[in-house]
């Protein structure tokens, strides 16, 4: 019963997900608040204005670029930072889990560093890399790294002993133990971390764009604020939410496929 039957043939939809209803309710209450003057229009625009602004921006530039262009810029930064963060975090997590001395040296420092939010790294990002893509990539890495590293570490440590024992009794050489036993056994948890890291990376990217760069969705929001155009701020926020959602759906799909390939039911 999660779908509502409505005459939606015009839109090419046979059913409408029930989840849309709260959105419509929110829009209604929001509009009501503005019309009645409870929330002045200088502070919050009417919903339709946001909608039209959103679609207008698909072709008309604001703060230098159109919305798709800024979204592409942001996504590109995110992809760089995310790939970089994952490429550092996965090997580091495995080494921390399986090499005792490194575990002793690195883990305590990491336990403290991981609580520093990505935004707190922005000043250093600017100081070290200047304003630009490198700085924002660095900030994204600080967001991606902790969840991926933590999951990799615990996934690698929690490999069931039975698998290792079975492999040991079957004369498994070291490289095969690593590639065909330890890695696939740890992978489901690692991939879970990668999914969380992808989302957190996206969120920290926007934080970095508020300060460290001159383009992208975050920058659009800043300009919207500075020019007192809240409809641009909100349409930027909507774009961020939609893309974040798309990232999560994609990585979730990927996770399920990996789990299936590893013979585990998701």
């Amino acid at each position, binding site marked *: 019963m999660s779908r509502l039957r409505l005459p939606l043939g015009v839109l090419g939809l046979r059913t409408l997900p029930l989840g849309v209803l709260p959105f419509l309710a929110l829009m209604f209450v929001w509009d009501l608040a503005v019309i009645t003057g409870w929330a002045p229009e200088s502070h919050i625009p009417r919903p339709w204005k946001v909608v039209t602004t959103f679609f207008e921006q698909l072709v008309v530039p604001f703060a230098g670029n159109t919305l798709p262009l800024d979204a592409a810029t942001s996504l590109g930064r995110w992809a760089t930072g995310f790939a970089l963060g994952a490429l550092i975090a996965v090997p580091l997590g495995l080494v921390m889990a399986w090499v005792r001395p490194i575990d002793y040296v690195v883990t305590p420092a990491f336990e403290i560093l991981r609580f520093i939010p990505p935004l707190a790294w922005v000043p250093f990002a600017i100081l070290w890399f200047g304003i630009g893509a490198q700085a924002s990539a660095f900030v994204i890495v600080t967001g991606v790294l902790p969840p991926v590293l933590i999951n990799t570490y615990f996934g690698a440590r929690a490999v*069931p002993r*039975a*698998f290792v*024992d*079975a*492999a*040991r*009794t*079957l*004369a*498994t*050489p070291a490289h*095969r133990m690593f590639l*065909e*036993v330890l890695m*696939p*056994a740890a992978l489901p948890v690692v991939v879970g971390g990668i999914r969380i890291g992808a989302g957190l990376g996206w969120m920290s990217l926007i934080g970095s764009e508020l300060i460290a760069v001159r383009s992208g969705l975050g920058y659009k929001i800043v300009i919207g604020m500075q020019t007192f155009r809240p409809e641009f701020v909100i349409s930027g926020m909507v774009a961020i939410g939609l893309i974040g959602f798309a990232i999560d759906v994609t990585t979730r799909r990927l996770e399920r496929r990996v789990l299936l*390939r*590893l*013979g*585990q*039911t998701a």
Partner: protein
Amino acid sequence: MSSVQFRSVVKRFAVGDGELTAIDGISLTVPGDTFAVIVGPSGCGKSTLLHMVAGLELPSSGEILVGDKRVTGPAPDRAVVFQKFALFPWKTARENIAFGLRNLGVPPAEREATVHHYLELMGLEGFGDRFPHQLSGGMQQRVAIARAYAVRPRVLLMDEPFAALDAQLRVVLQENLVQLWTREGGTVLFITHSVDEAVYLADDLVVMTRRPGRIKRVLDLREVSARLGWRKRPIEEVMQDPEYLHLKAEVWRNIKEELAP
């Protein structure tokens, strides 16, 4: 096939500040080509004993010899069938069975032939390309047995292999195992806490005391098993046999004496 000798084997584990003696001086010889079953109350150290033969644990003192070679670590001449199967979930049945053979550098053609042989023998034709989670518990355990047998171990170690299966399936697999063993031979060390299973399967039935584990007695069932043709008859028939029931009762008495009040 190789004999297994336990020479004054002791195993202690560190527990908190103290020590726990799991195995307290076991000396025993299992001759080659014997199906030896070790039965005992829970926690008597029988699994520890098996893990020591596998080389996954080492004795605190004493030694274990397989053939004339002292056990110093795991090796495929002592393949193990684990209680929870321990199949690699990311490998198909075929890949699981072939895994040890690949490690040993068996050429692909020969590997394929061996895998095919055991799939057929275990009644798994047509299931070779399934992943473990696509197989029933009984089939999974058959794959695990095939994986262990495929590397041609000198001794096959089975650690309560049927404990995780339901009673009906267990009976089928016991029969299956007897057929396999009759055909393939070898020395088998089989751990169980099921007296039914022990009496049906054993040439040598070793009864252990409660912890710290020692040997309470060893029964030689070769004569009775051969005379009554247990291994050639269906298990439900054997389980009605008066001599089988008598032996079972006797082993039960021995174990009951060891159960904590």
